[in-house]
């Protein structure tokens, strides 16, 4: 692609289709929005420069995620905030995104993510609140505990239950879609 005089434009059109996915993917690993933006920018730069090594154009989103994963983990390492992510967990993360692509091939990423929003809206009020405060508004668990007059462990457990409920809901919807 880089040999073509229109390569930049072609790349931009292709990358634009997956911009929302890439940011969401990076935000799975990096909670700081500014850092996630930097990682996304760097991933796009690397992707453009290495696009010649991509054999199968269909594999572009997975290939882009691979670049972003390495960049995100290396950015965390530079910031001394590396947390151990098991290879199995990273595999599952990719598997989740692959399911979105395979089960809903005609949809945009925003349409695919609407499925998660539906699951989120079906969470019980108490779980939705901690989820919103922690993941949406970026508040720390101890701050949420203070605001809601709960103990820290209770907030952490609610977050865990919210995550489990979301995971089960999203998985069941994607699996159901495949039949």
């Amino acid at each position: 692609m880089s040999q073509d005089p229109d390569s930049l434009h072609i790349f931009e059109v292709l990358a634009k289709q997956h911009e929302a996915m890439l940011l969401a993917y990076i935000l799975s690993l990096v909670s700081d929005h500014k850092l996630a933006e930097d990682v996304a920018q760097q991933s796009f730069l690397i992707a453009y420069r290495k696009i010649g090594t991509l054999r199968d154009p269909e594999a572009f989103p997975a290939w882009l995620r691979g670049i972003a994963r390495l960049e995100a983990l290396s950015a965390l390492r530079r910031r001394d905030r590396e947390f151990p992510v098991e290879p199995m967990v990273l595999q599952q993360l990719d598997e989740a995104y692959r399911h979105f692509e395979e089960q809903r091939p005609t949809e945009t990423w925003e349409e695919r993510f609407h499925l998660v929003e539906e699951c989120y809206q079906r969470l019980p009020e108490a779980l939705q609140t901690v989820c919103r405060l922690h993941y949406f508004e970026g508040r720390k668990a101890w701050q949420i505990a203070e605001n809601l007059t709960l103990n820290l462990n209770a907030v952490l457990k609610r977050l865990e239950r919210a995550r489990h409920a979301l995971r089960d809901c999203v998985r069941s919807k994607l699996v159901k879609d495949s039949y």
Partner: protein
Amino acid sequence: MSELTPGPTPDKPEQPKAPDGWELACIGIIRSEFGRLRSLALKKAMMQLSAEKAWEEGRAEAGRVRWWRRLGEVFAMQPSLRVAGVAVVAALVFFAGAVVWTFFPSGNHIQVMVQQPSGCRISDAVNARWAGGRSSQLKPGDFLPPEALRLESGVVELSFGSGAKAAVEGPAVFKMTSPNRIELNEGKLSTEVPHQAIGFTVRTPNVTVVDLGTRFGIDTKGQSDSEVDVFEGKVHVAEGRDVKKPDNEWDLTRNMAMVLDNRGGVTTAAAPESSFPQPSHSVLIRPANCGFDSPGHTAIGGFPEDFGYWSGPAFGLTGTVEGVRPAEGRGMLRFLSPPRQGGGAVDSVVWQIIDLRPAKDFMSRSGVTDLKAWVQFNRVHGDARSASKFKLTIAAFRGAASEAAAQWAARSRTALATAEQELVADNDPGTWERVDVATTVPPDADFAVLEIRAIAPKNTPPGVDPFPGHFADLIDAKVCLPLRASSSSAVR
């Protein structure tokens, strides 16, 4: 809609487990506001790639020009070669003509030689006057050509592909030699180099300055007279043109300066930063949910009691409706009619309190700064009974967010700065119209209030909705220092 099963009993004492991959995927999607979070990553990456591409094309072009010039110089220096040269050139021309005639018998294959840009863009200018020739037309937004340029007077701001930014004040003669390097033969320059552009180099006739992440200024008065002043961070200064074989070299840190002339280099204290032209600086003080694309950060009610959410008596967030599409993204704010008080229609108003503390360092460092805000408005086609006016107001205050309501109510007395602008909107739902406001704000301001208002027409008859489709989108604000010329000569 049925609720998801909440799982087993709450609040067990054991530690929660780390999320698995599917859970991480859900977390990322929530953090991205279900894909609606606006990102500038691709835009920034494309800008950088475009600048790099432009630079490479410019260098290739310059290489071609150099090749012809060198050939010309060889023939000019060796008179005996001139005859042979003419013969060689004639033969080459004949051969090229034959090739074109043979392989491309029809069509126009002549390409116009266009000067390619350098990968460095003029991002701002104040009273800039360039010396004649092609460069006399240079203006903000243009890429600099890779050739020596003479800025007669005024100030220009240059943005490099690497992310570095420089202000050059005329009279100055300079040339871009790479996306991260500039030659300054005469004049004043100051630069700001972010982390990713470390290595940014300025070469004068007698000094090479390599930046190690900083703000610094250079004043070059001729072939052997340069001054380097460091305002922040660290630079490496090498006397001579070749940084690898310098006559002398020094590292300068914050508040240090060096004057270098043909007698050598002397270190001294840095001149004030205002002795040099200064690039523009800004800090976004972005309101929460500024694109109205996500469902959060909103509340129906009175004046907000805290930072970071939109509040007003009657409004909603919506996607495309009544034939009006959001200016950008999925959502926009829709003004609705508040309950009438005493029969007359009232304006529809929405506020947000913005915390200025994250910009405090910048404001304290800069003194009085500009406070700017902007928003876009739109409305459906309507008659005289529906509102046609909108207003944007921003005001800055000292104190805590909890005092904001009282301060706002008495803003004519309490505001440190305020600005407002009204818009009479066109009757075309296909166009969004932007309103900008600006004022100056002192560094002790603690918070700002943004108000967007759809103004109800006077004497709206009872039962008539003055806001059948009135919208706002893409609201934003920043504190900034504009590009400025030096206020005095850097003479100690």
